[in-house]
């Protein structure tokens, strides 16, 4: 507020009421109030003026001061409206022109746009063009006019203020969600009151973890003491694993990245020089492929105020170019808080310019080509209000958005959630990666390559160390290779297919790595990978796809009609449980996920209980036949006797060559759009029978040996000694779990004694081992058994080493 202006006003009013005699205490109050007011300590002046008003109502100058105090306070500003109205009504002639502008500001905040426009026109017609408020008034007039236009547009957006665990009396700002909405990160600014003035004392980074319907709010542990500067949240990577901070004061804040480990921040890394200038960079958004950073900066060379820039990573992983998004996005006013949607085209940002209806508003634009952007549109009511609305982030399915708004108070923000009733055709891949036995989360890196373009998606996904969870977002109808590099395992290639669908899709993936070990001496002879994919298509269709929802509704209606008929019959006979019918007829589709889930589950549990209660095996079979089983892909890779890299797949990743285990393809998902019912006759249940190959016919050159071990015998003996049982059991485990392994058993004898007898002995030795496996129900088709007699005799080898049976495991070379 212009201080000189108020001082002049004070002098003017003082002369006006000089003649009047006021009681001593009243004068004292007034003098104090005036002092505070002149010092711009409006929060302190306000109660004094209010007191004066209660002593002497009907004085327009007191009313004016009260109005002006409210306007400049951090309280609910709109409370000033009646006071200024009174002041203008009774003292228009004595008050300066600017009061029209002041009241118009309050009307605007209170969404009374017609009244505001009216007053602004009066102000502009009377004010001099050189008046410092002239330009501001013009801008406000535009804001009001835009607002009037926007309010007429219909919207089905629902807004809710998040619960009190998140929105406290402090200010909550900069909301960011992980793509699956499970985590909400934000900055909480604490205020302190010292000698009656409230000022910002501390900023803390918080995370709210959604568990069911509620949020559990925790503080992110940042080493504030070491940083010493103010830290606020600037962005979150799409998988919610990397946080970006803006550290510094308002003149020079820089961006830092840090990896998140549960609620701890590991190791802060300053973003490259090219992004961090000596000016203020305060917010950042990363495209899902990690190749483009969008950020705001007030560096010189822009269009005025804060502008939005982007940095693009070139093929050599260097940040070479910084681009201003240009005049269609950036204006002479501030632009801030960019958010690039996972579709990599839609950019949301906050701006005070364009057709803002007041303060920061949220706008959306789309990338046409290269760095060309459509003219942004104001996303309108009810999200944008006359106050600051900033920091708009969208969930991956496009249905819900989070933003902060100051509503009626200008400094303190709260976080709101908007439900947009929209869906975006993207696939969200959520997964866990585990290793070892029993499976535990492991440290891993996931790189993703587009199979068509052979382009590497630049973002390296690093699953959470504690939970093994990762999250990726893909556009539809694509084929990707995932390269998984985990500590203690060979790199593994997984092919995933993202279906071509028109609605939001969620894939839950579990990757499980295990080393295959045989003997007790713990040498790994191979690596097993198990991937189970579950496509959560059906849930989502009920929640997010409006078309399918309509179908669902139809079906529900159909059921209702059916129910009525059934009900009539029951009324007469009462032979079907009423309870079950009630469950069906009261079923209702809510958009609330949690409720849907709980209902689904209650129904499942009670269906199952009733089926067991009635020993109704048909229902159980139906439930089973219709269940979506995880599509499990299991593959074991054996290193081979002589570890060779030949069998490894060589792939070029940027400039690196990575050798990975052969690609594992997960099958295409079942495209179930509407649940299909499998009707079963008890006899017609399909049986999965797999034809086992006959390993006995595999020629030697087609065998790739993966493992070899020996059993030794005393002279002339062919019984297996007890000490070998453990080893044989391990081998048995391995063969029984891996149906594509064949076994070669070769018996040998030392050259002492009759050659014929030695041949016989070697056969007995081999057969003894074969018998051991056959007794354990392994198919004889898997064994090649030979007695080799004295073959392979070598003078240099100890006699004892010759009395042996050789067990060789092999894979078939295709």
């Amino acid at each position: 507020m212009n201080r000189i202006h108020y001082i002049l006003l004070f002098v003017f009013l003082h002369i006006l009421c000089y003649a009047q005699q006021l009681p001593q205490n009243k004068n004292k109050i007034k003098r104090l109030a005036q002092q505070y007011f002149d010092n711009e300590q409006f929060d302190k002046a306000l109660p004094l003026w209010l007191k004066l008003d209660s002593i002497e109502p009907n004085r327009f100058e007191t009313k004016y001061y009260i109005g002006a105090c409210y306007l400049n306070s951090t309280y609910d500003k709109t409370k000033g409206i009646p006071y200024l109205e009174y002041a203008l009504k009774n003292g228009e002639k004595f008050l300066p022109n600017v009061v029209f502008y002041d009241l118009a500001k309050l009307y605007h905040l209170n969404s009374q746009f017609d009244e505001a426009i009216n007053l602004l026109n009066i102000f502009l017609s009377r004010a001099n063009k050189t008046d410092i408020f002239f330009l501001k008034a013009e801008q406000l007039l535009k804001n009001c006019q835009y607002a009037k236009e926007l309010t007429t547009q219909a919207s089905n957006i629902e807004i809710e203020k998040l619960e009190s665990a998140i929105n406290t009396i402090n200010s909550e700002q900069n909301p960011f969600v992980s793509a699956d909405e499970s985590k909400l990160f934000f900055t909480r600014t604490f205020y302190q009151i010292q000698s009656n003035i409230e000022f910002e004392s501390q900023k803390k980074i918080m995370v709210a973890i959604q568990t069911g319907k509620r949020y559990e709010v925790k503080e992110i542990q940042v080493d504030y003491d070491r940083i010493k500067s103010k830290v606020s949240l600037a962005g979150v990577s799409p998988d919610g694993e990397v946080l970006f901070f803006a550290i510094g004061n308002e003149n020079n804040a820089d961006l830092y990245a840090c990896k998140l480990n549960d609620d701890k921040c590991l190791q802060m890394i300053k973003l490259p020089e090219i992004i961090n200038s000596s000016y203020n960079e305060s917010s950042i958004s990363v495209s899902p492929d990690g190749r483009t950073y969008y950020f705001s900066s007030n560096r010189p060379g822009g269009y005025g105020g804060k502008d939005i820039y982007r940095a693009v990573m070139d093929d050599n992983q260097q940040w070479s170019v910084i681009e201003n998004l240009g005049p269609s996005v950036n204006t002479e006013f501030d632009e801030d808080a960019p958010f690039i949607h996972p579709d990599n085209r839609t950019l949301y940002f906050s701006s005070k310019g364009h057709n803002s209806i007041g303060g920061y508003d949220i706008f959306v634009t789309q990338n046409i080509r290269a760095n060309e952007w459509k003219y942004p549109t104001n996303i309108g009511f009810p999200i944008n209000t006359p106050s600051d609305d900033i920091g708009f982030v969208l969930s991956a399915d496009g249905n819900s958005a989070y933003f902060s708004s100051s509503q009626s108070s200008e400094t303190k923000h709260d976080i709101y959630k908007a439900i947009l009733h929209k869906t975006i055709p993207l696939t969200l891949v959520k997964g866990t990666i585990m290793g070892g036995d029993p499976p535990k989360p492991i440290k891993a890196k996931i790189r993703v390559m587009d199979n068509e373009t052979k382009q590497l998606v630049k973002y390296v996904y690093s699953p959470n160390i504690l939970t093994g969870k990762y999250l990726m977002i893909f556009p539809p109808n694509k084929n990707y290779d995932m390269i998984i590099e985990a500590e203690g395992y060979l790199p593994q290639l997984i092919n995933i297919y993202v279906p071509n669908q028109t609605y939001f899709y969620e894939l839950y993936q579990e990757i499980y790595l295990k080393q295959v070990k045989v003997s007790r001496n713990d040498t790994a002879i191979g690596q097993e990978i198990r991937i189970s994919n579950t496509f959560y298509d059906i849930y989502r269709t009920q929640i997010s796809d409006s078309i399918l929802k309509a179908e669902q509704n139809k079906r529900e209606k159909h059921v209702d009609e059916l129910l009525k008929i059934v009900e009539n019959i029951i009324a007469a006979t009462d032979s079907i449980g009423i309870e079950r019918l009630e469950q069906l007829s009261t079923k209702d589709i809510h958009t609330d996920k949690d409720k849907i889930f709980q209902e689904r589950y209650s129904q499942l549990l009670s269906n199952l209980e009733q089926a067991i209660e009635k020993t109704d095996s048909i229902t159980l079979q139906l439930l089973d036949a219709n269940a979506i089983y995880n599509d499990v892909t299991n593959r074991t890779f054996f290193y081979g006797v002589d570890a060779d890299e030949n069998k490894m797949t060589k792939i070029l990743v940027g400039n690196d060559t990575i050798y990975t285990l052969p690609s594992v393809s997960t099958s295409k998902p079942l495209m179930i759009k509407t649940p299909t019912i499998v009707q079963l006759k008890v006899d017609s249940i399909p049986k999965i029978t797999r034809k086992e190959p006959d390993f006995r016919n595999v020629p030697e050159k087609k065998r790739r040996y993966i493992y070899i071990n020996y059993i030794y015998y005393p002279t002339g003996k062919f019984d297996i000694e007890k000490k070998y049982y453990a080893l044989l059991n391990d081998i048995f485990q391995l063969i029984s779990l891996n149906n594509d392994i064949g076994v070669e058993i070769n018996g040998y004898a030392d050259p002492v004694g009759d050659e014929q007898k030695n041949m016989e002995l070697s056969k007995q030795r081999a057969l003894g081992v074969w018998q051991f496996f056959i007794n354990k129900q392994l198919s004889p088709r898997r064994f090649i058994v030979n007695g080799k007699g004295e073959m392979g005799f070598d003078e240099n080898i100890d006699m004892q080493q010759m009395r042996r049976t050789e067990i060789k495991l092999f894979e078939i070379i295709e």
Partner: protein
Amino acid sequence: MKRYAIILMGIFVLMSQLTAQQYTEYELKSAYLFNFAKFVEYPEKTFSSSRDPFIIGVYGNDAFLEVLQTIIKGRTVFNRPVIAISVSMPEEMINCQIIYFSRITITQAILYLEYIGNKPILTVADNVENFCEKGGMINFTPQYSHKRFEINPNAAQRANIVISSKLLSLAKIVNDAEVKF
């Protein structure tokens, strides 16, 4: 004629009910686990106090655990709250009423079964071959099997657990395998 109509309608209701809802493997198996608890009687002294929860331990599959936890949230068995936890060590298993083994080889399972011994813990496995033959109590069969699960009633009996005849009649009954070697 009227009776025929009723049966027909009954089938319709059943089918429409199933058409409306389709579940994933984990959801279905979680529902089974929860219902097993209802159709099983534990010896009297299983719980030390009346406020003890009913604990389901899950071995080797955290993703399953998450689904199970969502499903059983806020539900009770024998008037006790049900909770599900992840177990990986034998010591953790003793406090559970049900242990669910997922992604486990039969050799490992045998080790755990030996450790559990005859304690009143219902041991359930997810499609582990020969689990019941080796002394496990319940084992899920692969999808599309005639019976959804197999039960070894002798193993339960040894642990003083009484499995409802209803469950038994829905299961493939398996006996202890003869010890071979």
